[in-house]
């Protein structure tokens, strides 16, 4: 069965203090790995999809990388507005539910000014 584990569960940073969030996964065939940002009371906001090991994508202060077993979301010089829960999800290549996303529990990021 697919499993997605995110660490740490919570991370508190000072403004400007760079760090990384981890998402490890086990899936028989990866179709895609997704990163989302979720603010309190809102739906997940799409950030990135990664499809193959070695792939990297960037958006402002965020950079996502992918290996065969895990993905990292690097946050460079974060600002207080980057505070949110970051969710990782995997999509398996084959099976009855080709489009199903299996989510981790998320990392709650707090950036203090």
């Amino acid at each position, binding site marked *: 069965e697919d499993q*997605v584990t995110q660490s740490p569960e919570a991370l508190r940073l000072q403004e400007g203090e760079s760090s990384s969030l981890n998402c490890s996964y086990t899936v028989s065939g990866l179709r*895609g790995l*997704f990163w*989302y940002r979720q603010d309190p*009371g*809102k*739906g*997940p*906001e*799409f950030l990135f*999809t990664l499809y193959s090991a070695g792939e990297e994508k960037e958006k402002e202060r965020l950079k996502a990388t992918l290996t065969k077993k895990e993905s990292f979301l690097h946050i460079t010089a974060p600002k207080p507005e980057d505070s949110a829960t970051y*969710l990782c*999800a995997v999509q398996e290549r084959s099976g*009855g*539910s080709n*489009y*199903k*996303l*299996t*989510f*981790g*529990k*998320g990392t709650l990021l707090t950036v203090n000014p």
Partner: protein
Amino acid sequence: SAVISQKPSRDICQRGTSLTIQCQVDSQVTMMFWYRQQPGQSLTLIATANQGSEATYESGFVIDKFPISRPNLTFSTLTVSNMSPEDSSIYLCSVEVSYEQYFGPGTRLTVT
């Protein structure tokens, strides 16, 4: 991308009643999905809804409890039937566009 709206945004319902949640997308999409996010838990897929066919339910979810309609390529409804306090959750509609999945704002349901 896609812009998704949901109605209602939140509701408080009595045990034993039913609530229908609407999902509207600003473009035609083949696949629509319904997820549940229970307090402190990760998102879980309830079912996949294709236009013109019956919804496909994930293990642990049944049509009698969560009937879904998909009358056209921009709209879907999810009904939570015979509600109990355990159904208190955020219900989210999602669509896939060019291999990317986008989510609506969610419907926060509280069952008393």
